[in-house]
């Protein structure tokens, strides 16, 4: 192999947030251009809040430490400071790591889809800057393919793994489309706000905010494009609300089951979904026993998330085996790249011999019309190609075997003397000498 693939990086597992912040790449294009100037053949850098990864294809002349030094200098840091927080994968291990990143197996939340989009953006930028060529192109396309395969063949991303997403998923299971539903936020905790934002993103028609301090409700309503309502008239609005997220600091239940019976009758038994994020709880647990009323508190949602997390871990095992097999298949392609020049040389050699022999034959034949000349040329070249077909297929198969590529490519070059080595006449004398 006359090229090395390096993947050097740091992520949430290898480095703390201060290091990740310090060594994040602010200008990726400039960083990539600098590495190309340094002599690497191809480069692609990815910089997100949780990881910085530098994928490099270079000759043997460039080492991992040179890349690290360049990176540290670019971020005005020191190599000794950066190095302990990074990892470096070489060749197929680098390929494997990239595939794992693309499939979100290396993410903080396994299965989250965000990283694939970020990887695609980085790749697009590298292509536009001319920094990604044959190997990185193929590697990234393969990474996107593997990510798609993992998503299709496993259910790694099918379940919600955050409280707010779990709440939205449950709401969808009850109401189907959230478009046209009305939501209410009681109190204004951070997690409740997040859940409300997700609901709005999913098409909830209207959001009402009830808070003991009306001005706070009004401020929040302004941010969310919603409506602030007085806390005292909460029940008046409930009959026209489908999803309620509650997170007040009240010591007792804010919504009682007895009152809810009237509300549910008033809204003609249309379903209601309560999400109680407050501790102590805001909503009387008996509310869940009413028909068409569904109540989830913070512990219930945590349980849903934890169960989904463990399901994801099981799916991650399946995903890893897909990544392993795709890495091997990519390795075969890399090996076949090493074979490519040898195949070209073989065909050139065969064509050269065919042309030389054709010239001699034509000379012997004398006057030959163009049609016959063309037919003879076609035949000579075809014989050369067909003779090489089996050896080339043999070589291709051998390069798919681990560690066999170099040996067989070298053997083929020597057998056909593709490097035009001059062999001394007495090179094998000793071997030929019969034993006494």
């Amino acid at each position, binding site marked *: 192999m006359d090229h090395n693939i390096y993947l050097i990086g740091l992520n949430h597992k290898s480095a703390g947030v201060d290091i990740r912040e310090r060594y994040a790449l602010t200008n990726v294009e400039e960083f990539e251009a600098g590495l190309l100037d340094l002599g690497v053949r191809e480069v692609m850098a990815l910089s997100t809040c949780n990881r910085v990864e530098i994928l490099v294809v270079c000759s043997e002349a460039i080492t991992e430490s040179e890349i690290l030094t360049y990176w540290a200098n670019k971020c005005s840091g020191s190599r000794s400071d950066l190095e302990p927080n990074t990892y470096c994968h070489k060749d197929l291990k680098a390929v494997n790591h990239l595939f794992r990143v693309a499939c979100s197996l290396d993410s903080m939340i396994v299965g989250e889809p965000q990283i694939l989009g970020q990887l695609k953006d980085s790749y697009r930028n590298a292509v536009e800057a001319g920094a990604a060529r044959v190997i990185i192109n193929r590697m990234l396309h393969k990474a996107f393919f593997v990510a798609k395969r993992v998503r299709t063949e496993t*259910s790694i991303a099918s379940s919600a793994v955050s409280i707010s997403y779990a709440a939205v998923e449950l709401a969808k299971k*009850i109401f*189907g489309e959230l478009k046209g539903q009305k939501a209410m936020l009681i109190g204004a905790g951070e997690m409740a706000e997040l859940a409300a934002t997700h609901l709005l993103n999913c098409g909830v028609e209207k959001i009402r905010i009830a808070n003991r301090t009306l001005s706070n409700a009004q401020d929040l309503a302004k941010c969310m494009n919603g409506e602030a309502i007085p806390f005292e008239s909460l029940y008046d609005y409930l009959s026209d609300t489908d999803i309620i997220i509650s997170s007040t600091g009240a010591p007792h239940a804010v919504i009682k089951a007895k009152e809810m019976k009237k509300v549910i009758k008033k809204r003609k*038994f249309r379903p209601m979904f309560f999400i109680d994020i407050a501790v102590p709880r805001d909503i009387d647990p008996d509310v*869940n026993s009413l*028909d*068409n009323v569904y109540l989830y508190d913070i512990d219930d949602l945590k349980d849903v998330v934890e169960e*989904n997390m463990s399901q994801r871990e099981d799916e991650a095992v399946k995903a890893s085996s897909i990544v392993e097999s795709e890495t091997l298949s990519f390795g075969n392609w890399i090996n076949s790249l090493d074979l490519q020049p040898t195949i070209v040389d073989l065909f050139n050699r065969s064509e050269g011999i065919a042309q030389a022999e054709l010239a001699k034959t034509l000379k012997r034949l004398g006057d030959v019309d163009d049609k016959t000349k063309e037919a003879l040329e076609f035949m000579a070249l075809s014989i050369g190609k067909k003779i090489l077909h089996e050896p080339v297929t043999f070589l291709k198969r051998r390069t798919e075997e681990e560690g066999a590529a170099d040996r067989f490519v070298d053997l083929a070059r020597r057998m056909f003397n593709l490097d035009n080595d001059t062999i001394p006449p007495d090179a094998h004398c000793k071997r030929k000498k019969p034993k006494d």
Partner: protein
Amino acid sequence: MTLFEFFQYVIIALYLMGMIFFIAGALKNSPIMGKLGNLCAIGGFALHSLDLLLAVTLYKGTVLTGGFFYFSLLGWSLILVYFGLWWKIRNTFFALTASPLALLLFVASLAAQSLKVTLPAHLAGLFIGLHIGTIFVSIALMAMAAGAGVAFIYLNNKIKTKANLTAFGKEMPSLNTFDRVNHWAIMIGFPLYTLGLAAGFLWARGTFTKMFSWDPKEIVTLLVWFLFAFLFHQRTIVGWRGKKPAILVIIVFVITMISLWGINFFIPTHHSFKA
């Protein structure tokens, strides 16, 4: 084997394949399986329609006295109602109710080739047009509502008890969708059932000179009508939704099935199927 018989085996094969695809699609959460199921159901339904048309054309005079025709027609109505639902909500979930029942009814229709139904010829046109047609479509709607009801109770129970959903549960339509299907089926099914019943009583008046003759079938049908009417009233006036109408429609459907398979075969009645 005659061409006619071969034709019927193809229909069975298509319905069976459709059912397998629908069930596998729901369990494996695979939309492609659902699509394949739909293709099989469309093929089976097209041939089934042709089969019914041929039966009517070839046995013009006797088709209405053949028990097989009624089972076949009921199975056909089920698939028709399923297609209506699929067109409305673009979900193959309701095929889980329609396809096994349609297959069962079609196979039963073949087994019931020798069964005869007593039918006064002079009223046959009216009888088939109103009584059978409306009753069968309303039974098909009832089946869909019952299927939606079972699914509603299952999903409702899972959500209420905070149990994690399996792959099957994750791909199920929402509770609202099941309730909507239940609503549509009752809103369309009850008036049709009423019309079918009225036509039946009018036919009875012409044939037996009295509308009601305490026939077991008539008693059970009236019981079903009262329950159906109660359900219709509670949904439209009181605003029942969710679990209660789901349970009631399942009860109504079970009684109807007992009436169809039990009374028609084993109890002496005007609607008896005689071998």
